[in-house]
């Protein structure tokens, strides 16, 4: 809601500056968005009178004007078609800098001296109007006056960001009422007090309202002898100051009164209303109306219309129809000042995608008592400005206006809620300052009759808020709640996520956060099969774009996009992880949401360390495996098994491992296949891991049982065997553990060697076995016996032979 300081002062004796007023409004809950001085930069623009016009010797389209500016006379070259002797207009003198940035200088234009510039409204930043040429000012303005002073341009625009509850402040009068409490004064409205009732006898028109619930009040009057033309300057100035484009006197008056009172008005060309009839009814199926903006709208039976005897002429509370628009030849105007159901207007405005100043106000609720006052104000202005005469009487349909119950306010309750200690009289006084009538009762309560203009005040709590507001939130003493001491529940899943994040960070990963919605094409980029579970996702009805169209079912694609971005910006060593939700549809209900941890790593193995120390070795699958190991260790999850598999759809062949627990997949990791990497624009090897935290959370918590530390030394014996290439080293290690020799403490793989003197297709695998007994120091004979047993087992089981040293 925009207004100007001077406009507000028209109704209230206010001795505050614009900035002071803005601060007070903000602190009263009417947040000021902008405070802008209007019509600045017009210091050297004066009123000038053209005394003579002569042709320009060197240009057909230019003339030489002699302009009287007070006691001075200036010669000005001008190209405006309306430059003529006797015209009073605006002249920018040398030195003036116009709002466009143009600096006025004494200059030669096509060989003729020009000592200034005659200006249009547009050139002065007053309006967009340019067509007519230079400004046409009232002939009684004395030349030489400052234009700003002569046109009373000096003013400040203030814009308030209204919360939906303060419908009353969508008007200058409403804001003036609120501002009245700042200075302890009440406003004076242009139309005050009760108006005489309108009589509808012998009217040349009828109004029929179908349902009072849709339209609680409808006031209509007829004006004859209207002359359509431009509005007087004072009216145009008000509209221009708040960014509205003046149209013609009738339309401008309806807009002005709407801004002044908050009551939207509509003017119909009465000649266009068939049968002299106004019907307020719901639309019929298939009906259409071309609205004032030129768009033909399809109407549905939910929408409320204003119709004549034959056709719709307006969408009630939203916009008028082109078929009954006031036009230059209009002489009879039917003026509507009505109150429509907020919900109905809101729904209609939504469906039509059409929000207007009128619908904005009706949606929030318009005081039903305003209709006759705004009507009276507009009728008076129409008579005064357009030369119209009002047909006596009119229609005032008011069946939907309901009396409002009195609200009882408990003094103790008010004080308890706010932490204050006010007495009833103080509360009454506060409410009275914004014209809320309140009466102290005998039983420590206050009876409040909510005024019609505050449609938001319905309950005791609404009044408590008003009292808090009027006392001032910052003057309410600060306290701390007295609460019982208790230890809040801890969410185990959340604790696990924090632990996981800590581990990932310790491993050199940065946390990423991606949007929960992604493009459905991610599944294609990953090359997922047609029936893949990840393809089954929850779509949004109104996404911002196709690439944010569905809720994600995987975290990986988002991270891959992040990797591409980083590589594009020349960061090629990337380790990112994300802990976030994926979403799987469950019929029409809320989807199943579960947490995943996904990480990607690519680039150098020692990303943050200088090449001078570590060289530039790149990560491989074993780095990914090490990360998984660390996670399992850090989260105490030894029961997860690593199962190499070949059916990873997005993994490179044979570079894919599943993490299994109790026959359930808890996660996977591997190298991203080159094909998928290419789809995401990544040209370097990339490894990923993904863990389903729902599965992890479901596992029984690990029992930690401290083991005694060994007191006797261990001995290490090596075992180097030559096996076929297909034999997996891990199987050798597992076989030794599986033999369950009590003295074997640890088996470590320390070398794999291929090449001479071994033949092709074979490799040497070297293991280091740690033997230890808990109760004694081992001797060679004891260890030797076990070592030989294990060696024999390996040789037989894996068709191995000992490697000659």
């Amino acid at each position: 809601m925009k207004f100007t300081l001077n406009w507000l002062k028209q109704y209230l004796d206010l001795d505050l500056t614009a900035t002071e007023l803005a601060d007070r409004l903000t602190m009263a809950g009417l947040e000021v968005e902008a405070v802008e001085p209007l019509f600045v930069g017009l210091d050297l623009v004066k009123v000038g009178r053209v005394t003579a016009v002569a042709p320009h010797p060197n240009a057909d389209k230019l003339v030489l004007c002699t302009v009287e500016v007070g006691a001075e006379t200036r010669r000005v070259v001008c190209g405006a078609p309306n430059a003529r002797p006797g015209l009073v207009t605006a002249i920018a003198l040398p030195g003036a800098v116009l709002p466009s940035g143009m600096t006025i200088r004494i200059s030669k234009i096509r060989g003729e001296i020009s000592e200034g510039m005659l200006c249009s409204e547009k050139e002065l930043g007053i309006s967009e109007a340019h067509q007519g040429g230079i400004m046409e000012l009232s002939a009684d303005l004395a030349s030489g006056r400052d234009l700003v002073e002569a046109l009373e341009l000096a003013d400040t625009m203030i814009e308030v960001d209204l919360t939906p509850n303060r419908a009353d402040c969508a008007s200058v009068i409403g804001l003036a009422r609120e501002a009245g409490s700042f200075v302890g004064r009440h406003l004076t409205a242009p139309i005050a007090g009760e108006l005489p009732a309108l009589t509808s006898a012998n009217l040349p028109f009828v109004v029929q309202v179908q349902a009072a619930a849709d339209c609680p009040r409808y006031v209509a009057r007829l004006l004859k002898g209207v002359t359509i033309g431009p509005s007087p300057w004072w009216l145009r100035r008000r509209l221009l100051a708040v960014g509205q484009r003046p149209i013609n006197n009738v339309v401008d008056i309806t807009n002005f009164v709407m801004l002044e009172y908050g009551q939207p008005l509509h003017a119909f060309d009465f000649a266009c209303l068939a049968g002299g009839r106004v019907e307020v009814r719901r639309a019929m199926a298939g009906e259409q109306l071309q609205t004032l903006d030129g768009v033909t709208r399809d109407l549905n039976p939910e929408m409320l219309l204003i119709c004549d005897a034959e056709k719709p002429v307006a969408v009630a509370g939203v916009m008028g129809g082109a078929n009954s628009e006031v036009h230059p030849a209009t002489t009879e105007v039917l003026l509507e000042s009505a109150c429509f159901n907020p919900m109905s207007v809101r729904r209609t405005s939504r469906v039509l995608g059409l929000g207007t100043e009128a619908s904005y106000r009706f949606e929030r609720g318009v005081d039903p008592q305003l209709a006759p006052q705004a009507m009276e104000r507009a009728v008076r202005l129409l008579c005064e400005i357009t030369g119209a005469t009002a047909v006596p009487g009119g229609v005032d349909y008011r069946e939907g206006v309901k009396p409002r119950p009195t609200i009882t306010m408990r003094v103790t309750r008010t004080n308890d809620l706010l932490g204050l200690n006010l007495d009833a009289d103080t509360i009454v006084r506060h409410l009275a300052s914004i014209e809320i009538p309140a009466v102290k009762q005998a039983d420590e309560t206050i009876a409040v009759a909510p005024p019609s203009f505050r449609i938001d005040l319905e309950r005791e709590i609404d009044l408590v808020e008003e009292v808090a507001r009027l006392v001032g939130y910052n003057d309410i003493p600060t306290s701390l709640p007295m609460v019982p001491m208790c230890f809040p529940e801890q969410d185990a899943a959340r604790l696990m996520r924090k632990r996981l994040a800590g581990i990932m960070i310790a491993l050199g990963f940065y946390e990423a956060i991606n949007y929960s919605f992604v493009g459905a094409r991610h599944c294609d980029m990953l090359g997922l099969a047609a029936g893949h579970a990840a393809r089954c996702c929850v779509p949004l009805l109104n996404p911002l774009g196709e690439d944010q169209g569905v809720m994600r079912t995987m975290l990986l694609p988002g991270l891959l996009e992040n990797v591409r971005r980083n590589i594009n910006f020349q960061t090629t060593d990337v380790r990112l992880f994300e802990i976030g939700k994926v979403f799987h549809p469950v019929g029409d209900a809320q989807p199943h949401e579960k947490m995943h941890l996904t990480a990607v790593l690519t680039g150098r193995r020692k990303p943050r360390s200088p090449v001078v120390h570590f060289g530039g070795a790149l990560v491989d699958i074993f780095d990914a495996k090490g990360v998984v190991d660390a996670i399992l260790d850090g989260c105490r999850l030894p029961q997860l098994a690593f199962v190499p598999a070949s059916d990873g759809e997005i993994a490179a062949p044979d570079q894919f491992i599943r993490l299994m627990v109790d026959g359930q997949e808890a996660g996977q990791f591997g190298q991203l296949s080159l094909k998928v990497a290419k789809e995401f624009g990544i040209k370097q090897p990339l490894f990923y891991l993904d863990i389903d935290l729902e599965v992890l959370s479901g596992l029984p918590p690990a029992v930690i049982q401290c083991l005694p530390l060994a007191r006797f030394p261990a001995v290490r014996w090596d075992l180097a065997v030559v096996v076929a290439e297909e034999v997996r080293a891990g199987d050798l290690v597992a076989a030794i553990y599986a033999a369950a020799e009590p003295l074997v403490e640890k088996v470590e793989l320390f070398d794999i060697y291929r090449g001479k003197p071994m033949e092709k297709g074979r490799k040497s695998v070297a293991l280091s076995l740690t033997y230890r007994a808990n109760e004694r120091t081992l001797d060679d004979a004891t260890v030797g016996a076990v070592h030989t047993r294990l060696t024999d087992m390996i040789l037989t089981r894996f068709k191995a032979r000992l490697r000659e040293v």
Partner: protein
Amino acid sequence: MEAELHRLQTEARAALTASVNALGLEAFRVKYLGRKGLFTTVMRALGDVPVAERPRLGKLANDVRQELEEAFAAREAELAGSQMAVGAPRSDLTLPGRLAPFGKSHPVTQVMEEVCAIFEGLGFAVAEGPDVELDYYNFEALNIPPHHPARDMHDTFYVSDSVLLRTHTSPMQVRAMQKAAPPLRMIAPGKVYRCDSDITHTPMFHQVEGFLVDRKVSFGDLKGVLSVFIAKMFDKKTPIRFRPSFFPFTEPSAEVDIGCVICKGEGCRVCKKTGWLEILGAGLIDPAVFKMVGYDPDAYTGFAFGLGMERIAMLKYGITDIRMFYENDLRFLSQF
């Protein structure tokens, strides 16, 4: 032979003490410990001693040699340390360290954890709820019926007529109150969604909602708890002001501003010249919400507040474009 060894030992000890620079040390090494040094010469003589004496003398020779080598190393380190060595290779400490791997939390997570930690310290429990929420919890139960203009304050993503992406974490108020009787003290951190995207809005962002319900909770208590929070989160001296505002699920409702952390109240671009920054929304829980969850609004009162994590992170770290949070550019993430 034995005597020779002892003599050499004594002589070498003296020579080592006399070496005061790298050059001297190198001369010592060549003369005594080198391949053609005096020590090697003496050791060669070991072959000439009687077999029975060899182990004893061999051990003695080894002990002496070891002692000298250790003394040499110690002297060398000492000289290097005292920087008296000239011309010898030294460790170049301008070389970068071998950095151990270390990543970082996302700045939004960092701020969120900080906020949660403050309220957890005040005894608030942490609760999380679904991102894809029912219209009922997101709006209706919070006193925002269909077609209420307050819905304009929430540009909502819909999944169906009755299912949507939560526009705030306030639904957790209702879910928690439905589950448990007062007193309640809870915060609900999480992702929220609004269909809006520009330099100050992303369609997804993070919020922490908090609420407290008990008997006799007042607006003054709300002010107190939020003042404690702001003092911890920012600075003890950060000025705070409360302004009336409107949220359908609180009444009285307030916006809370803090003195601009950038210009310290002087007025700058970030605070739009006001000297104040809007930091959170709050209020007493509306009796209508209590009725929805079956609490007696005359018996219980409470307050609720909600704050955006991105906004706080932006203020704290001087981030000017909110979209940077979701690009996950390491040049950005590594700064926090």
